[in-house]
C-alpha cells in the first residue's frame, strides 16, 4: 500500500511535471530577456576602444561594446541576465510556484489520508 501511494504520487507528478516544470529563461517574455541584452538602445555610447571605425566589423563592435561599458544606476548591464532570471525578479513565474505549492499540499493531504485509512483497517 505504501509503495502504491508513492507510485500514485509519482504518476501524478509525472503527469504535470513532464509539461510544466521549466526554467525561467524558457518561458520569460521577450521584454524580460531583451531588457537585459538590448535595453532598447542603439549602442551609441562613447567607447574608449570603439573609435577605430572601419577596422572593426559590426559584430566585433557589438561584442566590444557589450564588454566595455557599464550602464548608469537603475539600468541593467550586459551579461547580467542570470541575475534577473531568478524567481524573485520574475513575477510571471510566481503563479507556477503557487501552483506547485498547491500540488505538493494536495499530495501531502492525499498521502496522509490514504496511509491513515490503511492503519485503521
Amino acid at each position, binding site marked *: *500500500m*505504501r509503495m502504491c*501511494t*508513492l507510485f500514485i*504520487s*509519482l504518476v501524478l*507528478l*509525472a503527469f*504535470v*511535471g*513532464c*509539461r*510544466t*516544470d*521549466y*526554467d525561467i*529563461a*524558457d518561458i520569460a517574455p521577450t521584454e524580460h530577456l531583451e531588457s537585459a541584452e538590448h535595453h532598447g538602445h542603439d549602442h551609441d555610447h562613447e567607447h574608449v576602444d570603439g573609435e577605430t571605425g572601419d577596422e572593426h566589423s559590426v559584430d566585433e563592435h557589438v561584442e566590444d561594446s557589450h564588454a566595455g561599458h557599464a550602464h548608469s544606476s537603475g539600468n541593467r548591464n550586459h551579461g547580467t541576465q542570470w*541575475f534577473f532570471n*531568478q*524567481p*524573485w*525578479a520574475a*513575477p510571471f513565474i*510566481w503563479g507556477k*510556484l*503557487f501552483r*506547485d*505549492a*498547491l500540488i*505538493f*499540499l494536495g*499530495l*501531502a*493531504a492525499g*498521502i*496522509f489520508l490514504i*496511509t*491513515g485509512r*490503511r*492503519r485503521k483497517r
Partner: protein
Amino acid sequence: MKAVFTFSLMTLRMLFRRRTLWGILLVILLALAGIASVPSFDVSNQGRFILDFGLFGIEVGALLLALGLAANLYPRDRETGTLMPLIAVPLSRWQYLLGRFFGAALVQAAALIVTCLGLMLILLFHRLPIPGDLLPATLLIIVEGWFLLSTVFFFSFFASPPLNWPLTTMLFIVSQMSVSEFVSAMPSAPGLMRAVRLLLPHADVFHIKDPIAHGFEIEPVYFLIAVFYGLCYSAFMLSLALAVFRGRDLK
C-alpha cells in the same frame, strides 16, 4: 493537537540540552566572523561580500542544523526503547512525527535567528549599513531549513544517521540545480528528468541574497509565495516520512 504541542515542547527542551546544537551554532558564528575578517584590500563594496557570503553561510548552517538536530532523533528513540511506550498509548505515529518536527523546527529557527543577529553585529562592527530585507531573507532560509529538516526526518525512517547526512546533502545540492542543468544529466529522457525535477524542490526560490547585496527591493508578495511554497513542500516531505513510518514494524 495538545499532545503534539506538549511533545514538541519536550523535544525542544531535549534539543536545547544537547551539545550538538551549541557546537553547530558556534561553528556558524565562527564562519561568519571568518568571512568578515577577510581583508578588503580597499576594494569597494566590502559590505556586499560580507552579506552575500554571510547569507550563504547561514544557509549551509541551516543544513548542518537540520542534520545535527534530527538525523538521530528517531534512531535514538528506537535504540533507547522510548519510542514504543510513546506510540503505544499517548501518541499516534503522526503526532510523534509532528511533535518531533515542530520541536526541532523551533530550535532550528531560533539558532538561525541568532546567526542573523550575528551577521548584523558584524555589519555594524564594520560600520556597514544593515539592509532592511536581511530579516526576511533569514526567514526564507528558515523555511528552507524546515524543508531540509523534513527531508532528514524522511530519510531517518529507513537510513542510518551516517547515511542520512550524504543523502540529505545530495538532495540539498541537486535542489540548487536548474531544470536545464538537471535534464542535461540524462538528455535522452527529458520528460522523465523534468518530472523528477518537479519532485525535487526549487531551492533558488529561497535565495534572495543577490538582490539584497546589490540593493534591490523584493516585493512582499514574493515572500508570501516563497514561504507558502516552502511550507507546502515541507508538508509533502513529512507526509512521505509518515507513510514510511506508518508502514514500519517496530517490534
